[in-house]
């Protein structure tokens, strides 16, 4: 007689971290010319999938900031999109200089941008705080000289009107 395999959840409850759709996008350091394209592509995918517009708006702001961070500070990186049943999880990892003091970098107005980056309208020191403000879960890990891994989640019906 076979026993049903026990599950960790009560029957009928949906697994909320199940990845329904995933896609990975490459980001090239210093490629200002194509800056923002990954964020735009992700936005187009989520629109097709029918995510609420407010969630797409918040995620697009976060994705754009994260993408530009890789372009400005890293040699290369990637943005991994994971569509969950009621949320979107994004992981942006890069091979780059890393962030020596995350707490400092998380404060508004703190930036290590070069004058050249500032001339392009970046480097106001709002990137990371902006990503955190627009996401419902936020996590950052960084190793100096190795790179940074940024992970954030936007709920389909989270932080309305933020």
């Amino acid at each position: 007689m076979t026993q049903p395999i026990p599950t960790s959840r009560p029957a009928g409850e949906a697994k909320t971290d199940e990845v329904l759709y995933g896609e990975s996008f490459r980001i090239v350091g210093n490629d200002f010319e194509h800056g923002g394209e990954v964020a735009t592509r992700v936005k187009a995918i989520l629109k097709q999938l029918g995510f609420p517009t407010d969630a797409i708006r918040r995620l697009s702001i976060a994705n754009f900031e994260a993408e530009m961070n890789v372009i400005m500070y890293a040699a290369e990186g990637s943005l991994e999109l994971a569509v969950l049943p009621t949320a979107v999880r994004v992981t942006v990892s890069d091979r780059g200089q890393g962030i020596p003091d995350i707490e400092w970098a998380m404060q508004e107005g703190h930036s290590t941008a070069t004058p050249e980056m500032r001339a392009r309208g970046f480097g106001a020191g709002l990137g990371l705080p902006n990503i955190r403000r627009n996401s419902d879960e936020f996590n950052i890990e960084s190793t100096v000289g190795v790179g940074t891994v940024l992970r954030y989640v936007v709920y389909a019906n989270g932080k309305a009107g933020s």
Partner: protein
Amino acid sequence: MPHRTHAIVTDKEKCIGCVTCSMACPTKAIRVRSKLAEVDDELCIDCGTCMEVCRYDAMRPRTSSPADLKRFKYTVALPSLTLYAQFGKELHPGQALHALRKIGFDETYDISWMCEMVMGATDAYLSESTGPWPKISVTCPALLRLVQIRYPDLIPHLVPIETPRELAAKLRRRRVAAEKGLDPAEIGMFFITPCTAIIHSIVAPVGLEASHLDGAFSIADLYGPLLKSMKEDPGSDPVDSVSVRGLRWAMAGGEISGMRNANSMTVRGLHDVIYVFDRIEAGTFSSVDFIEAYICPDGCVSGGLTVAGRYTAQRNLQEAYRLLGDQTLVKEEKVRSLLREHFFDFEAEIKARPVRPLARDLREAIALKREKDALMERLPRKDCAACGAPDCETLADDIVRGKAQLSDCVFVRLEALEKERSAEQGGDHD
């Protein structure tokens, strides 16, 4: 079938079913089926691109006709400022207004002073607004449609001040009714338009319950009769009410040139609009206060229903500015009192009209997205548009939405045919 409100119709006699318009359409709203270009009302922004590229004159604007004037006891023509730029650099706005009366309108009403009023009202609005920034001008109706369809999140950025043409029509109808003792409905207010988007904005207004205008004649249609009238009777109407500051609105950059707020920018042409609006959505333009944006490359002077080329038109306008001097008419106190009366306010909420997702259910939408990705692998990616859709990706989208079939692709059909033939030949030799 619901009542069609769009300003461009396909002439079935003239359309040969080539795919030029379909490929040029910036919102991918056109499909060619059974040798006929069909416009998807949900996606069309009435920009007029299809009309401009059609070599067979098969995309026609739905303009008013002289018969429409007969429905009213009294008719008023409100010309777009662009009309003044059509007839050569020596021409004065007063001559164009005079000629308009001569060809059949009971009166003409210049809107340049209302443009100046709206510049003042926008300044006042910007100084009191709390964001979100930047604020975006609502002058260009094609742009407004684009925001509803593609950038619904930017609706709170739109300046909630009605356009000069609508405000001028509202005001003038009221005054004419009082002066002539007519019922407002007996007065016909007609705009002389440089573009199709304005025609659509009259039939299906955004930010208004109903338009204050009753119809629109195209500059191109009236150009001949006006020119003839000017030659026969070169008179001029008084132009005391023409504002040169307001007149600048005819060109891209003109709206902000008449405003006090200098932290603004002009975005010209659809390609640049998309570039900038993608970034406004991402939050990177929030240090700018105001954006004046046009789907046409130089603003209204480059509208699809004009006659003079946009470069000539701008030269003509520059000359008119020089001749008229720096004529400004609007008193700040007047703008403030009208603001208090809510004269400039939108009369209806602007609704988002986002493009439908692949499916309502997320899992189903993902399944269709995968199906679409798989179809892209099978399609040739030549974007030849022979299937009737403008490119392979749009065909794939149509297929998963049930609006087209894979066999619509000529390359796929050819491949199948070749496979069949080689299978037959293989059979012969076995």
